[in-house]
């Protein structure tokens, strides 16, 4: 799946917006040169697998009150506007990141690659993790 050059007029819009989705998986996708958040997920469980993200004005992925896992995701070469982030999660229930790369993600503020704000990970839910990933030139 290719998502290239999409425009959302609403300032809070996104290329893909998901709310109250029990389980969703996005696999083998390519996002480039879109002008809003590429994927925004709220009150849902989402996994993103084998996907690439580059050249965006705002966050590549933003989770709110959700469970988000990233596996073999590559985010690269993006100068965000409005303090965007590669991956941002707010009040998330669980975060899992593995085998992923975050390269040359530049923001005005903190968290060019990742910003995690108020994470509620706890037992018996599997503890959140970031493993076997690389962060370079952010």
């Amino acid at each position: 799946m290719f998502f290239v050059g999409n425009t959302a007029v609403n300032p809070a819009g996104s290329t893909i917006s998901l709310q109250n989705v029990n389980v969703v998986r996005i696999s083998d996708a390519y996002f480039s040169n879109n002008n809003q958040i590429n994927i925004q997920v709220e009150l849902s469980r989402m996994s993103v697998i084998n996907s690439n993200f580059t050249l965006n004005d705002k966050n590549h992925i933003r989770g709110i009150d959700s469970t988000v896992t990233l596996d073999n995701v590559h985010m690269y070469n993006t100068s965000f506007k409005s303090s965007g982030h590669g991956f941002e999660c707010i009040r998330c229930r669980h975060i899992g990141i593995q085998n992923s790369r975050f390269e040359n993600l530049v923001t005005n503020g903190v968290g060019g690659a990742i910003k995690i704000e108020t994470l509620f990970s706890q037992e018996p839910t599997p503890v959140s993790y970031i493993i076997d990933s690389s962060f370079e030139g952010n």
Partner: protein
Amino acid sequence: MSGNKFLANRAIDLSEKTGVGGAILFECDPTKISFSCTVALLNNTFTGNQANRKGGALRYENDKFSDAPLLDRSFRIHAENRLLQAPAVAQAAANIFKDNEAPYGADMASFPKSIRFVVPESYSGARIDLERLTLTLAAGQSFKFELSILDQEGRVYNDENEATAKIDF
């Protein structure tokens, strides 16, 4: 967080909140939420990261991350059973820091914890009261001392521009 590589990340700005934690900034205030701020940081490599204020590789506030071999139960179970599939990984805790840069805390910056009062041993006859930070000298005796703010890691905290010291004679 385990087995990750942080290479040539930068936090460059002159304002208070940014310019700190070239690769990672941990902020956690346990009084604001009802959960603990437990983070385990194991077997990661930090190379050539940079901050123009503090914490070239990482900066933490309030609770420190865990880097001890004996991990909390949840992370140990996770590491052994779910992801890493090798109990040995959970035992090897060392993070590697190399060539990171910052005016304070090239590898790791935290926050002030204590004050170190150092008087050269050559002051024969001087009486030092460390509790009250007083140095009693003979009349006319010259003196020299060093007062340092130390951070959580026992390193000199040199990012303090507002503290004042009062010396009574």
